């Protein structure tokens, strides 16, 4: 999807089997053209040549021809077998995972990709991999079907609850490539994606070692919110969520049960986390557990920073988060800051 490709509107080739898929594609295009041109030409020529000259004329009769019929049954059959074989070979390459290579674990979840490297690094909606290395993904999901899809690598696989599916690739070109969820999974399906960063081997090594403390408060807060503390299980923003919607609340007046209102400032957010029973938002049940004693001050800062970023407010140290123009699309994925390396 990058611009630097040799045909307009053509996706970049960035894995070892991208060219194979493309070759198959062009083979099929060639076949299609080879069938389309004669057929369309025939229709045009016959259309012009045998255009009705006289109304209700009765042209001479013609019967079918067994020879012709046989010929044009066998030719497509043979051709279609070549297509099958080509497809089978490419498929074999795509789905036979290599023995060596690095392992990455992927968990899909409405609507994010949680990724863990062998070295313990965790990422959300991002995948950093070194170039020219076999990477094998072992994938599953916590809820519904998803599909891990990287068009530039020409590969994808469904992620199925209750079992592991696998995907592998060998990226050939450093760069930043789209990562999509390609199996419909509900509300935020189109927001469930991010980027794959292919890095040179040295950069990747640096990323691996430096990543541990490399998170900004917003990122760290998001990580806490989405994974470590499980806030997202209630606050992910879907219609069926139990918790209040947190996008865009900062500095807004919040209606509370009983009719009073409160302005959602830092303190309010902090209080909501530590003592949620104190002020109940209208329309919700007081079911949020307290996190007092479970979160450190540092984490609280990060959480508040993250919740503010959902309203488009930048906080200490973090990159400006993407403006929350369209609330539904403000899945964390879309506002993910690009990696700094």
């Amino acid at each position: 999807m990058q611009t630097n490709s040799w045909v307009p509107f053509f996706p970049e080739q960035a894995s070892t089997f991208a060219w194979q898929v493309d070759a198959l594609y062009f083979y099929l295009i060639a076949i299609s053209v080879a069938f389309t041109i004669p057929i369309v030409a025939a229709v045009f020529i016959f259309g012009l040549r045998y255009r009705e000259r006289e109304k209700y004329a009765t042209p001479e009769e013609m019967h079918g021809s067994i020879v012709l019929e046989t010929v044009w049954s066998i030719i497509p059959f043979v051709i279609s077998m070549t297509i099958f074989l080509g497809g089978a070979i490419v498929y074999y390459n795509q789905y036979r995972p290599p023995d060596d290579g690095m392992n990455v674990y992927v968990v899909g979840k409405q609507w994010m990709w949680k990724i863990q490297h062998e070295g313990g690094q965790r990422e959300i909606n991002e995948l950093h991999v070194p170039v020219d290395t076999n990477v094998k993904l072992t994938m599953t999901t916590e809820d519904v079907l998803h599909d891990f899809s990287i068009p530039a690598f020409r590969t994808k696989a469904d992620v199925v609850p209750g079992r592991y599916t696998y995907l592998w690739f060998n990226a050939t070109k450093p760069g930043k490539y789209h990562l999509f969820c390609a199996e419909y999974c509900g509300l935020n399906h189109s927001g469930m994606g991010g980027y794959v960063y292919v890095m040179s081997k040295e950069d990747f090594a640096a990323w691996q070692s430096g990543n541990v403390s490399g998170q900004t408060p917003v990122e760290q807060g998001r990580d806490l919110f989405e994974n470590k503390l499980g806030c997202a299980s209630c606050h992910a923003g879907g219609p069926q969520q139990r918790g209040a919607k947190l996008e865009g609340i900062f500095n807004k007046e919040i209606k509370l049960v009983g009719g009073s209102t409160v302005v959602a400032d830092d303190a309010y957010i902090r209080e909501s986390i530590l003592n949620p029973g104190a002020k109940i938002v209208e329309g919700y049940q007081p079911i949020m557990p307290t996190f007092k004693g479970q979160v450190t001050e540092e984490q609280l800062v990060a959480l508040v920073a993250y919740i503010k970023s959902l309203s488009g407010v930048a906080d200490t140290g973090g990159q400006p988060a993407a403006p929350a123009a369209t609330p539904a699309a403000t899945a964390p994925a879309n506002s993910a800051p690009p990696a700094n390396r």
Partner: protein
Amino acid sequence: MQDAGLTNEEIEEKPKLNYLTNGSTLKSWLLTKDHKRIALMYLVSVSAFFFVGGLYAATIRLELLTPATDLLESGTYNKAFTQHGILMIFFFLIPSIPAILGNFLLPIMIGAKDLALPRINLLSLYFYWIGGALTIFALLQGGVDTGWTFYTPYSTTFSNTFVMAVGLGIFINGFSSILTGLNFIVTIHTMRAPGMTWFRLPLFVWANYATSLVMILGTPVVAITVLLLAIERFARVGIFDPAIGGDPILFQHLFWFYSHPAVYIMILPGMGVISELISNFSRKKIFGYEFIAFSSIAIAVFGFLVWGHHMFVSGQSIYAGLVFSFLTMVVAVPSAIKMFNWTATLYKGSIDFSTPMLYAIGFLGLFLIGGLTGLFLGSIGLTVHLTDTYFVVAHFHYVMVGGQVIAYLGGIHYWWPKMTGRMYSEFWGKISAMLVFIGFNLTFFPQFILGYQGMPRRYASYPEELQVLNIFSTAGASVLGVGLLMPVVYLAHSLIYGKKAGDNPWLLPGLEWRTASPPPTENFEKMPVVTWEAYEFGEENGLDVEEARRRDLATVR
């Protein structure tokens, strides 16, 4: 029974009762057993569903004009494409040609007074209505957002929408389809007029026979599948739930066991119409009648062996994927045979480019592209990249809209004078056929490119670099929308102001052209005896060319 040589006035002078005028109370329509009236009621209801489905399509395209979710929220968008798919497939495309044109014409074409089981026919209409009403009710309540494929476990456990109600609507509607298929099979076996041997049947009848086989053998499976889905959702336990050891992929197997053959329910009748049009408007016997007839049956039968090609990346076994890919290639061959035979039929014909023929020519081109891109998708290595992208969306719109819908429009125009006794405006007919063709290609061709670039389907928002082609697509959809609205206007107009058509406006040999337009309730004044082959334009068919020419001179100017 030809009215050749009669002018409008003369026809007016002898008002015979036809199926439209024979009874005008509401009861005479709602409790009718006349296949022609039932077909007409189908026509109205199916068209209504088409336009509702089309409205959803319009909102989808408008939302995709920009990369962000600005017109619709993603939840609303998800409902929009789901409901678009459900209405278009189950309530428009599947009943379109069989239940309207098939119902109307099949008995006439074989020289019968009615379908063999008229009460069953009426029952099937009521199933359609009940299923449709339930679905519409569910849509009004808040709709459904699972995609038309209802994949588990999203549909069983996670979706918070009206899955059960819609599922039930589809379940009931399924029986409408089954009963229609059953009726057709019985009718074709037992109700043929004397002399109407199997190999004298018009190819439209063969196509509907093949379609009916699929309806009977496939539809019950999807019925039980959505029933299981509904029960599982209701009971919160079942066989698709991976949390307790069930298998979500089993749902896909059962669903596609029907839904792949169902795509042939959606194209075979269209192919039948095209065979009629190509042959009749070239005034020539179709090339290779037997091959076309048997290829319909072959498609129906082999169509049951390939469903797994929708599940190449679903996690089914790799081995199964290869087998299904292989069989998919095989099933393409019968379609190829048809393609070539149609083209060969044009050779040395006397081709009349009236509106129906324009649609037929359009079909040839569009179905060709749709079918060939089906091969792309059937080639397993390539599908891994293409599946669940807009390439698939473009493929199936090419076969479904470019194929069946175009054939349906062609058929409606072709038989309109027979059904209503009036001729529509040829001028507007041609304009709208052109608009549909251009608009259609503009809408869906860019989607192939989008798909290869990797744009996933069912996306409410997409990366910005893909916007250009999406704008083309939306622009095309508006042209297409206009093109599709026009027939409603001029066809309705023709009902009152249209020229009287006469019994056989095109001077064609089929049995349906040998009775009055509109036909009487019993279809024929007296039981026809068939002595000619299908598409017989020679002397044997008893058509009087000179007479028709004189009639034209008298009426046209």
